[in-house]
Protein backbone atom coordinates (compact mmCIF):
# COMPACT_ATOMS: atom_id res chain seq x y z
CA UNK A 1 0.00 0.00 0.00
CA UNK A 2 3.02 2.25 0.32
CA UNK A 3 2.49 3.52 -3.24
CA UNK A 4 -0.55 5.53 -2.10
CA UNK A 5 1.04 7.04 0.98
CA UNK A 6 1.82 10.77 0.82
CA UNK A 7 5.54 11.47 0.69
CA UNK A 8 7.47 13.80 2.99
CA UNK A 9 10.88 15.32 2.29
CA UNK A 10 12.98 17.24 4.78
CA UNK A 11 16.25 19.17 4.70
CA UNK A 12 18.43 21.35 6.87
CA UNK A 13 19.83 24.49 5.18
CA UNK A 14 21.50 27.09 7.40
CA UNK A 15 20.26 25.40 10.56
CA UNK A 16 21.68 23.32 13.40
CA UNK A 17 19.57 20.16 12.96
CA UNK A 18 17.75 21.07 16.16
CA UNK A 19 14.45 21.17 14.28
CA UNK A 20 15.08 17.66 12.97
CA UNK A 21 15.85 16.57 16.53
CA UNK A 22 12.53 18.09 17.57
CA UNK A 23 10.80 16.05 14.87
CA UNK A 24 12.38 12.90 16.30
CA UNK A 25 11.15 14.12 19.69
CA UNK A 26 7.60 13.11 18.74
CA UNK A 27 8.78 9.82 20.28
CA UNK A 28 6.52 6.84 19.66
CA UNK A 29 4.30 8.91 17.40
CA UNK A 30 7.06 8.46 14.82
CA UNK A 31 5.66 4.93 14.31
CA UNK A 32 2.28 6.46 13.54
CA UNK A 33 3.98 8.89 11.19
CA UNK A 34 5.73 6.03 9.42
CA UNK A 35 2.27 4.47 8.93
CA UNK A 36 0.89 7.69 7.46
CA UNK A 37 3.74 8.76 5.18
CA UNK A 38 6.68 7.64 3.13
CA UNK A 39 9.92 9.54 3.64
CA UNK A 40 11.49 10.87 0.45
CA UNK A 41 14.72 12.91 0.33
CA UNK A 42 15.71 13.54 3.94
CA UNK A 43 18.66 13.31 6.34
CA UNK A 44 16.49 10.85 8.30
CA UNK A 45 16.96 8.15 5.61
CA UNK A 46 20.00 9.79 3.99
CA UNK A 47 18.37 9.97 0.52
CA UNK A 48 20.19 12.83 -1.19
CA UNK A 49 17.91 13.31 -4.19
CA UNK A 50 14.19 13.22 -4.86
CA UNK A 51 12.47 10.01 -5.97
CA UNK A 52 10.34 9.97 -9.10
CA UNK A 53 7.06 10.90 -7.38
CA UNK A 54 5.92 14.26 -6.06
CA UNK A 55 6.08 14.93 -2.35
CA UNK A 56 3.03 16.14 -0.48
CA UNK A 57 5.05 17.99 2.14
CA UNK A 58 8.54 19.47 2.30
CA UNK A 59 9.87 20.50 5.71
CA UNK A 60 12.64 23.11 5.53
CA UNK A 61 14.89 23.77 8.48
CA UNK A 62 17.26 26.76 8.25
CA UNK A 63 17.41 29.83 6.04
CA UNK A 64 19.62 30.44 3.01
CA UNK A 65 23.20 31.49 3.72
CA UNK A 66 24.85 30.24 0.50
CA UNK A 67 24.05 29.38 -3.11
CA UNK A 68 23.72 25.68 -2.35
CA UNK A 69 20.95 26.43 0.17
CA UNK A 70 19.11 28.40 -2.52
CA UNK A 71 19.49 25.57 -5.03
CA UNK A 72 18.24 22.98 -2.53
CA UNK A 73 15.29 25.16 -1.52
CA UNK A 74 14.29 25.69 -5.16
CA UNK A 75 14.56 21.94 -5.78
CA UNK A 76 12.24 21.34 -2.82
CA UNK A 77 9.79 23.90 -4.16
CA UNK A 78 9.79 22.09 -7.50
CA UNK A 79 9.11 18.66 -5.99
CA UNK A 80 6.78 19.42 -3.05
CA UNK A 81 3.13 20.45 -3.04
CA UNK A 82 3.37 22.16 0.33
CA UNK A 83 6.54 23.74 1.64
CA UNK A 84 6.85 24.53 5.34
CA UNK A 85 9.39 26.74 7.09
CA UNK A 86 10.23 24.83 10.25
CA UNK A 87 11.88 26.85 13.01
CA UNK A 88 13.10 30.40 13.47
CA UNK A 89 16.08 30.08 11.09
CA UNK A 90 13.81 29.15 8.16
CA UNK A 91 11.28 31.77 9.24
CA UNK A 92 13.51 34.77 10.01
CA UNK A 93 17.14 33.71 9.49
CA UNK A 94 17.72 32.87 13.15
CA UNK A 95 21.14 32.75 14.76
CA UNK A 96 23.03 32.62 11.40
CA UNK A 97 21.30 35.91 10.48
CA UNK A 98 23.12 37.66 13.32
CA UNK A 99 25.79 38.28 10.70
CA UNK A 100 23.33 40.28 8.62
CA UNK A 101 24.24 43.54 10.29
CA UNK A 102 27.97 42.94 9.73
CA UNK A 103 29.57 43.42 6.28
CA UNK A 104 30.64 40.14 4.64
CA UNK A 105 34.31 41.15 4.53
CA UNK A 106 34.34 41.78 8.27
CA UNK A 107 32.67 38.38 8.86
CA UNK A 108 35.36 36.60 6.81
CA UNK A 109 38.15 38.53 8.53
CA UNK A 110 36.80 37.54 11.95
CA UNK A 111 36.31 33.89 10.96
CA UNK A 112 39.56 33.27 9.07
CA UNK A 113 42.06 36.00 9.97
CA UNK A 114 41.51 38.02 13.14
CA UNK A 115 39.36 35.89 15.45
CA UNK A 116 40.98 35.10 18.83
CA UNK A 117 41.04 31.33 18.16
CA UNK A 118 42.06 31.46 14.49
CA UNK A 119 45.20 29.54 13.41
CA UNK A 120 45.74 30.29 9.73
CA UNK A 121 49.42 30.71 8.82
CA UNK A 122 48.63 31.06 5.10
CA UNK A 123 46.52 34.12 5.86
CA UNK A 124 44.14 33.05 3.09
CA UNK A 125 40.35 33.03 3.14
CA UNK A 126 39.04 29.68 1.75
CA UNK A 127 37.98 30.18 -1.87
CA UNK A 128 37.99 26.67 -3.39
CA UNK A 129 35.62 26.33 -6.34
CA UNK A 130 34.05 23.32 -4.57
CA UNK A 131 32.78 25.55 -1.79
CA UNK A 132 29.32 27.04 -2.31
CA UNK A 133 29.43 30.82 -2.60
CA UNK A 134 28.24 32.58 0.50
CA UNK A 135 25.36 35.08 0.12
CA UNK A 136 25.59 38.74 1.11
CA UNK A 137 23.29 37.95 4.02
CA UNK A 138 21.17 35.11 5.40
CA UNK A 139 17.67 35.02 3.87
CA UNK A 140 14.51 33.59 5.44
CA UNK A 141 13.06 30.91 3.11
CA UNK A 142 9.98 32.93 2.19
CA UNK A 143 12.21 35.69 0.82
CA UNK A 144 13.64 33.14 -1.69
CA UNK A 145 10.68 30.94 -2.71
CA UNK A 146 6.99 30.84 -1.81
CA UNK A 147 6.48 29.07 1.50
CA UNK A 148 3.01 27.74 2.37
CA UNK A 149 3.26 27.55 6.17
CA UNK A 150 5.58 28.70 8.94
CA UNK A 151 6.18 26.91 12.21
CA UNK A 152 8.43 29.26 14.21
CA UNK A 153 10.27 28.28 17.37
CA UNK A 154 13.85 27.45 18.28
CA UNK A 155 13.03 24.68 17.73
CA UNK A 156 9.26 24.32 17.33
CA UNK A 157 8.20 21.73 19.88
CA UNK A 158 7.50 18.14 18.91
CA UNK A 159 3.83 18.80 19.74
CA UNK A 160 3.79 21.76 17.37
CA UNK A 161 5.30 19.71 14.53
CA UNK A 162 2.97 16.81 15.24
CA UNK A 163 -0.15 19.02 15.36
CA UNK A 164 0.76 20.67 12.05
CA UNK A 165 1.62 17.40 10.29
CA UNK A 166 -1.55 15.65 11.47
CA UNK A 167 -3.66 18.61 10.31
CA UNK A 168 -2.02 18.66 6.87
CA UNK A 169 -2.17 14.89 6.41
CA UNK A 170 -5.87 14.82 7.30
CA UNK A 171 -6.77 17.84 5.14
CA UNK A 172 -7.59 20.06 8.09
CA UNK A 173 -6.55 23.70 8.48
CA UNK A 174 -3.34 24.21 10.49
CA UNK A 175 -4.67 26.01 13.55
CA UNK A 176 -2.20 25.74 16.39
CA UNK A 177 -3.56 26.08 19.94
CA UNK A 178 -2.09 29.11 21.76
CA UNK A 179 0.73 27.34 23.66
CA UNK A 180 2.08 25.78 20.45
CA UNK A 181 2.90 29.00 18.58
CA UNK A 182 6.19 30.22 20.07
CA UNK A 183 9.23 32.14 18.84
CA UNK A 184 11.66 30.83 21.46
Amino acid at each position, binding site marked *: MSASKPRIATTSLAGCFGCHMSLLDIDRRILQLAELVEFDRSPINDFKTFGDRRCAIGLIEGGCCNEENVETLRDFRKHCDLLISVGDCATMGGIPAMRNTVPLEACFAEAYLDGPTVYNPSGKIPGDAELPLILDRVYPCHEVVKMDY*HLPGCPPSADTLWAALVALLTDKPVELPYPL*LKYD
Partner: protein
Amino acid sequence: MEHMEQYSITIDGRTLTAWEGQTIMEAAHDAGIYVPHLCYLRGLVPFGSCRVCTVKADGRFVSACTQPVTPKMTIENDSEELLDLRRSLIEMLFVEGNHFCMFCEKSGNCELQAIAYRLGISAPRHDYQFPERRLDASHPDIFLDMNRCILCARCVRASRDLDGKGCFDFVGRGRGRRIAVNAEARLSDTVVDVTDEAIDVCPVGAILKKRVGFKVPIGRRTYDLEPIGSDLEARRRPRAAAPTGGAS
Protein backbone atom coordinates in the same frame (compact mmCIF):
# COMPACT_ATOMS: atom_id res chain seq x y z
CA MET B 1 -16.10 63.07 39.76
CA GLU B 2 -19.06 65.38 40.43
CA HIS B 3 -21.25 66.16 37.42
CA MET B 4 -19.32 63.86 35.21
CA GLU B 5 -21.56 62.84 32.32
CA GLN B 6 -22.23 59.20 31.64
CA TYR B 7 -22.35 58.11 28.01
CA SER B 8 -23.76 54.96 26.55
CA ILE B 9 -21.42 53.54 23.90
CA THR B 10 -21.13 50.19 22.13
CA ILE B 11 -18.00 48.13 21.49
CA ASP B 12 -18.49 45.23 19.07
CA GLY B 13 -22.22 45.44 19.69
CA ARG B 14 -21.92 45.36 23.47
CA THR B 15 -23.49 48.36 25.17
CA LEU B 16 -21.55 49.85 28.05
CA THR B 17 -21.35 52.97 30.11
CA ALA B 18 -18.42 55.31 29.67
CA TRP B 19 -17.63 58.55 31.42
CA GLU B 20 -17.09 61.94 29.92
CA GLY B 21 -13.37 62.55 29.45
CA GLN B 22 -12.46 58.89 29.19
CA THR B 23 -10.63 57.58 26.18
CA ILE B 24 -11.96 54.58 24.28
CA MET B 25 -9.07 52.56 25.76
CA GLU B 26 -10.06 53.44 29.33
CA ALA B 27 -13.75 52.72 28.75
CA ALA B 28 -12.90 49.39 27.12
CA HIS B 29 -10.54 48.51 29.95
CA ASP B 30 -13.21 49.26 32.57
CA ALA B 31 -15.57 46.92 30.74
CA GLY B 32 -12.99 44.13 30.58
CA ILE B 33 -12.48 44.49 26.84
CA TYR B 34 -8.92 44.10 25.63
CA VAL B 35 -7.70 46.49 22.96
CA PRO B 36 -4.15 45.45 21.97
CA HIS B 37 -1.63 48.22 22.62
CA LEU B 38 2.10 48.79 22.95
CA CYS B 39 2.93 52.48 23.50
CA TYR B 40 -0.07 52.95 25.79
CA LEU B 41 0.48 52.17 29.45
CA ARG B 42 -1.86 53.11 32.27
CA GLY B 43 -0.32 55.89 34.31
CA LEU B 44 1.61 57.42 31.40
CA VAL B 45 0.44 60.28 29.19
CA PRO B 46 -1.02 58.67 26.02
CA PHE B 47 1.37 58.95 23.10
CA GLY B 48 -0.57 57.44 20.18
CA SER B 49 2.46 56.34 18.19
CA CYS B 50 2.26 52.58 17.72
CA ARG B 51 -1.31 52.57 16.30
CA VAL B 52 -1.76 48.96 17.44
CA CYS B 53 -4.86 50.06 19.40
CA THR B 54 -6.53 51.34 16.22
CA VAL B 55 -10.30 50.82 16.39
CA LYS B 56 -13.13 52.05 14.19
CA ALA B 57 -15.23 54.65 15.99
CA ASP B 58 -18.37 55.71 14.11
CA GLY B 59 -16.76 54.39 10.94
CA ARG B 60 -13.39 56.15 11.30
CA PHE B 61 -10.00 54.72 12.23
CA VAL B 62 -8.77 56.23 15.50
CA SER B 63 -6.28 55.20 18.15
CA ALA B 64 -8.23 54.05 21.21
CA CYS B 65 -5.59 55.40 23.61
CA THR B 66 -6.02 59.03 22.51
CA GLN B 67 -9.63 59.25 21.27
CA PRO B 68 -12.16 60.46 23.87
CA VAL B 69 -15.54 58.78 23.95
CA THR B 70 -18.58 60.70 22.74
CA PRO B 71 -22.27 59.95 23.45
CA LYS B 72 -23.61 56.92 21.55
CA MET B 73 -20.24 56.18 19.99
CA THR B 74 -20.23 52.90 18.03
CA ILE B 75 -16.87 51.18 18.20
CA GLU B 76 -15.48 48.19 16.32
CA ASN B 77 -12.56 46.46 18.02
CA ASP B 78 -12.50 42.76 17.21
CA SER B 79 -13.29 42.73 13.48
CA GLU B 80 -11.21 40.80 10.94
CA GLU B 81 -10.33 44.09 9.24
CA LEU B 82 -8.85 45.55 12.43
CA LEU B 83 -7.14 42.32 13.44
CA ASP B 84 -5.38 42.22 10.09
CA LEU B 85 -4.39 45.88 10.32
CA ARG B 86 -2.90 45.20 13.75
CA ARG B 87 -1.14 42.10 12.45
CA SER B 88 0.47 44.18 9.74
CA LEU B 89 1.63 46.82 12.25
CA ILE B 90 3.12 44.18 14.53
CA GLU B 91 4.84 42.49 11.59
CA MET B 92 6.39 45.83 10.61
CA LEU B 93 7.78 46.26 14.12
CA PHE B 94 9.39 42.82 13.86
CA VAL B 95 11.06 43.40 10.48
CA GLU B 96 12.19 46.94 11.34
CA GLY B 97 14.27 45.76 14.28
CA ASN B 98 16.42 42.75 15.06
CA HIS B 99 14.19 40.47 17.11
CA PHE B 100 15.99 37.23 17.90
CA CYS B 101 13.46 35.86 20.39
CA MET B 102 15.36 32.59 20.76
CA PHE B 103 17.99 34.25 22.93
CA CYS B 104 16.18 37.36 24.16
CA GLU B 105 15.88 37.56 27.94
CA LYS B 106 12.47 39.19 27.57
CA SER B 107 10.97 36.30 25.60
CA GLY B 108 7.76 35.11 27.22
CA ASN B 109 7.35 38.41 29.06
CA CYS B 110 7.52 40.60 25.97
CA GLU B 111 4.39 42.52 24.99
CA LEU B 112 5.33 42.75 21.30
CA GLN B 113 5.83 39.00 21.08
CA ALA B 114 2.69 38.37 23.15
CA ILE B 115 0.50 40.41 20.82
CA ALA B 116 2.03 38.57 17.85
CA TYR B 117 1.13 35.26 19.53
CA ARG B 118 -2.39 36.46 20.32
CA LEU B 119 -2.90 37.57 16.72
CA GLY B 120 -1.55 34.24 15.48
CA ILE B 121 1.37 35.63 13.47
CA SER B 122 3.64 32.83 12.28
CA ALA B 123 5.78 34.96 9.94
CA PRO B 124 5.73 38.58 8.73
CA ARG B 125 4.50 39.45 5.23
CA HIS B 126 7.23 42.09 4.86
CA ASP B 127 10.94 41.47 4.20
CA TYR B 128 13.34 41.68 7.15
CA GLN B 129 15.50 44.81 7.18
CA PHE B 130 18.25 43.75 9.60
CA PRO B 131 19.17 47.32 10.54
CA GLU B 132 22.40 48.18 12.31
CA ARG B 133 21.60 49.18 15.89
CA ARG B 134 23.60 49.96 19.03
CA LEU B 135 24.00 48.04 22.27
CA ASP B 136 24.95 49.99 25.40
CA ALA B 137 26.09 47.81 28.31
CA SER B 138 27.98 50.60 30.07
CA HIS B 139 25.64 50.86 33.07
CA PRO B 140 26.44 48.46 35.92
CA ASP B 141 22.81 47.34 36.32
CA ILE B 142 21.06 48.03 33.00
CA PHE B 143 21.40 46.94 29.35
CA LEU B 144 20.15 49.13 26.54
CA ASP B 145 19.74 47.10 23.35
CA MET B 146 18.43 49.23 20.52
CA ASN B 147 18.07 46.14 18.28
CA ARG B 148 14.76 45.56 20.06
CA CYS B 149 13.53 49.13 20.60
CA ILE B 150 10.11 49.81 19.04
CA LEU B 151 10.18 53.56 19.74
CA CYS B 152 7.14 53.45 22.01
CA ALA B 153 8.47 56.27 24.22
CA ARG B 154 7.36 54.60 27.43
CA CYS B 155 10.88 55.09 28.85
CA VAL B 156 10.89 58.73 27.72
CA ARG B 157 7.57 59.47 29.42
CA ALA B 158 8.29 57.46 32.56
CA SER B 159 11.73 58.97 33.11
CA ARG B 160 10.41 62.49 32.52
CA ASP B 161 7.02 62.31 34.27
CA LEU B 162 7.37 59.61 36.93
CA ASP B 163 11.08 59.65 37.79
CA GLY B 164 11.54 63.38 37.14
CA LYS B 165 14.87 62.74 35.42
CA GLY B 166 14.47 62.84 31.64
CA CYS B 167 17.16 60.26 30.99
CA PHE B 168 15.77 59.19 27.58
CA ASP B 169 14.55 61.05 24.52
CA PHE B 170 14.24 60.77 20.77
CA VAL B 171 16.83 62.01 18.31
CA GLY B 172 16.73 61.94 14.51
CA ARG B 173 13.78 61.84 12.14
CA GLY B 174 11.93 59.32 10.01
CA ARG B 175 13.85 56.09 9.56
CA GLY B 176 16.76 57.56 11.54
CA ARG B 177 14.64 58.20 14.64
CA ARG B 178 15.99 56.46 17.70
CA ILE B 179 16.17 56.63 21.48
CA ALA B 180 19.15 58.48 22.91
CA VAL B 181 20.32 58.92 26.48
CA ASN B 182 20.62 62.29 28.16
CA ALA B 183 24.42 62.30 28.39
CA GLU B 184 27.50 62.79 26.23
CA ALA B 185 27.60 59.18 25.13
CA ARG B 186 26.59 56.32 27.35
CA LEU B 187 23.82 55.23 29.69
CA SER B 188 26.30 55.04 32.57
CA ASP B 189 26.83 58.80 32.21
CA THR B 190 23.16 59.53 33.00
CA VAL B 191 21.52 59.68 36.43
CA VAL B 192 19.31 56.67 35.60
CA ASP B 193 18.94 54.09 38.35
CA VAL B 194 17.86 50.46 38.11
CA THR B 195 14.93 51.19 40.46
CA ASP B 196 13.54 53.89 38.13
CA GLU B 197 10.07 53.42 36.66
CA ALA B 198 11.62 54.00 33.24
CA ILE B 199 13.45 50.68 33.51
CA ASP B 200 10.31 48.67 34.24
CA VAL B 201 8.00 50.08 31.58
CA CYS B 202 9.82 48.91 28.43
CA PRO B 203 7.40 46.50 26.70
CA VAL B 204 10.21 44.66 24.90
CA GLY B 205 13.76 43.56 25.65
CA ALA B 206 15.35 46.92 24.80
CA ILE B 207 15.84 47.93 28.44
CA LEU B 208 16.85 44.98 30.59
CA LYS B 209 18.09 44.60 34.14
CA LYS B 210 21.40 42.84 34.43
CA ARG B 211 21.75 39.62 36.44
CA VAL B 212 18.07 38.70 35.99
CA GLY B 213 18.44 36.72 32.78
CA PHE B 214 16.52 33.47 32.71
CA LYS B 215 15.73 33.27 36.45
CA VAL B 216 12.19 32.41 35.44
CA PRO B 217 12.66 29.71 32.80
CA ILE B 218 11.17 29.86 29.31
CA GLY B 219 7.83 28.05 29.38
CA ARG B 220 6.84 29.51 32.77
CA ARG B 221 6.67 33.16 31.80
CA THR B 222 3.75 35.60 31.76
CA TYR B 223 2.51 34.96 28.21
CA ASP B 224 3.70 31.38 27.71
CA LEU B 225 0.37 29.73 28.44
CA GLU B 226 -2.27 32.46 28.42
CA PRO B 227 -2.60 35.18 25.76
CA ILE B 228 -1.95 38.81 26.69
CA GLY B 229 -5.22 40.46 27.74
CA SER B 230 -6.76 37.28 29.19
CA ASP B 231 -6.44 38.57 32.76
CA LEU B 232 -8.36 41.69 31.79
CA GLU B 233 -11.00 39.69 29.92
CA ALA B 234 -11.42 37.39 32.93
CA ARG B 235 -12.38 40.43 34.99
CA ARG B 236 -15.09 41.36 32.49
CA ARG B 237 -17.93 43.10 34.29
CA PRO B 238 -21.33 43.89 32.87
CA ARG B 239 -21.01 47.59 33.72
CA ALA B 240 -18.25 50.03 34.49
CA ALA B 241 -18.21 50.74 38.21
CA ALA B 242 -15.90 53.73 38.30
CA PRO B 243 -13.94 55.68 35.73
CA THR B 244 -10.25 55.15 35.23
CA GLY B 245 -7.73 57.48 33.73
CA GLY B 246 -6.89 61.07 34.45
CA ALA B 247 -3.26 60.48 33.54
CA SER B 248 -3.56 62.86 30.61
